[in-house]
């Protein structure tokens, strides 16, 4: 096996871009909290974005690589180290076997992503590698990684030893991604109006766009509970259940807002006040407990153009990384 978990982290799970087409059976898509960092992690090592990778929270795991490997770490800065050498973020690295990856210090962000060239080799459930923690299925046995777990990448034709200099155990490869644009103004989150926006009182609407909200400690992969001025409706509403989405701002009966995150359930009956634009979900996913955020209202046209821009950039990066990798191994 290529790697094993010497010491598990707080919550390390296998994810891919999510499990689609089963929502009408109540099977939620899951997938990475920060889909931008996850996609970049895969493309840095020449994978397509649908390969399995590991989402890591802090405290992170200690992972022993038992074979030579090419990996990348993106997203939050947990100061990744390979043995006693600092490893760069957003840049691929080749390492010799018997190297330990660990994360001694939280510098910034909430979750990071570890990809391996070839993608992790595990069985799919309903066409996806993503872990469904509630249903205890998908990923590695439907659970977080624990001590002793072993994983391998799919077969690759790259001879990693040939990429390493003789006495060196680690080689940082010469291409990296500048992710600063995707996380610019990290506390400013764009939203578009939800179906029940107009049912919110005018003062509450103004507060929502003026105030700071803080992320409550009980927030997790299912949703971020927000602390802030209570949001009030013009009249009480009782809604029957219908579909919800990643980024939906629901209004709870006590006036609190919750932002549905990656492990959100498929349907709900709380008022849908607004929705975080998809292009800002990555920076939202990097906010931690007690971080604050401010909402800014925008249009669906703008939201879509932000997504398109981000994807265009990722497509260019994918081609560039593959070119670099091909040149390197030839």
């Amino acid at each position, binding site marked *: 096996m290529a790697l094993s978990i010497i010491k598990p982290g707080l919550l390390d799970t296998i994810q891919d871009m999510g499990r689609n087409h089963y929502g*009408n059976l109540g099977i939620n898509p899951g997938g990475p909290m920060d889909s931008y960092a996850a996609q970049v992690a895969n493309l840095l090592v020449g994978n397509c974005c649908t390969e399995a990778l590991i989402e890591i929270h802090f405290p992170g795991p200690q992972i022993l690589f038992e074979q030579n490997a090419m990996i990348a770490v993106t997203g939050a800065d947990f100061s990744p180290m390979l043995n006693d050498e600092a490893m760069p973020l957003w840049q691929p690295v080749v390492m010799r076997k018997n190297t330990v990856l660990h994360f001694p210090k939280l510098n910034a962000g909430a979750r990071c992503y570890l990809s391996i060239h070839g993608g992790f080799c595990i069985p799919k459930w309903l066409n996806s590698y993503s872990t469904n923690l509630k249903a205890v299925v998908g990923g590695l046995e439907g659970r977080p990684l624990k001590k002793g777990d072993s994983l391998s990448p799919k077969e690759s034709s790259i001879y990693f030893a040939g990429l390493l200099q003789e006495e060196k155990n680690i080689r940082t490869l010469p291409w990296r991604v500048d992710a600063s644009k995707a996380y610019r103004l990290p506390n400013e989150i764009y939203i578009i109006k939800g179906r029940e926006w107009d049912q919110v009182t005018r003062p509450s609407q103004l507060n929502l766009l003026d105030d700071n909200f803080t992320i409550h400690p009980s927030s997790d992969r299912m949703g971020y509970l927000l602390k802030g001025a209570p949001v009030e409706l013009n009249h009480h509403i009782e809604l029957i259940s219908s*579909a919800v989405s990643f980024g939906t701002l629901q209004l709870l009966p006590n006036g609190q807002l919750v932002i549905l995150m990656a492990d959100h359930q498929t349907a709900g009956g709380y008022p849908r006040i607004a929705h975080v634009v998809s292009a800002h979900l990555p920076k939202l996913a990097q906010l931690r407990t007690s971080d604050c955020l401010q909402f800014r209202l925008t249009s669906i046209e703008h939201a879509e153009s932000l997504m398109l821009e981000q994807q265009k950039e990722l497509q260019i990066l994918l081609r560039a990384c593959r070119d670099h990798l091909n040149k390197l191994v030839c």
Partner: protein
Amino acid sequence: MNESHNLERQTQRLNQEFNIFPLGDSAATMDFGNTINKSLNSRVRNIGHWLRQHSLQGFKNVIEGYSSVSILYDPVILQRNYLFESTAFDFIRKKLEEAWKETIHDPIFEDGPLTRIPVCYDEEFGIDLNFIASEKHLSKEEIIRIHQSKSYHVYMIGFLPGFSYMADVDERLVIPRKKVPVTVSPGSVGIAGSQTGVYPISCPGGWQIIGRTPMALFDPSSENPVKLQAGDQVQFYSISRSEFEAASQ
């Protein structure tokens, strides 16, 4: 009636019958009103079925609610594959309207098969039976008898893998959900408002729990991991504690 008259009437019906709105920048919902109603539910399921049969690149999920149907999509993939001038939302809105038109003459979705679900209403399992008994001035036996006295229509599957929303319970059993959810065991049978349902897995739940079933409504190892579907009919029947234990082996 001539063609333009038909079209005018269709457009009128279009504007009255439903609303289409964004559910964020990557999803849209077509809503027929805030009502639990079998024929609306059937309409919604016809549309959902058509959308699945005519799925497009970029569709990620089609989800039916009680009286709504939503498409979750990837605007970038849609842009890449289909020509449209304005927004991906507008493109999807037109698709939803097309689905509505194409299914307008579809027969009411037939009721699915009847599934009989065994329930043990033992005190240890029916943790809220006493509460319901005192609120509704009924004995526990009456609650159980009333719960089993009719078959229920499955309106939608959602919230959790295999969680079926069924209705309508007899008005004598209508009771609001808890203000604060508690952890419920898998198989717990509950009531909330005029709905009844079964929690297929353990999770925090706000429904009033009256019993437990040993039947696995969600089995990830199966080719069809979810046992029930929207449109199915469900009837509950009693089993004893020892029968429950035997069935749970």
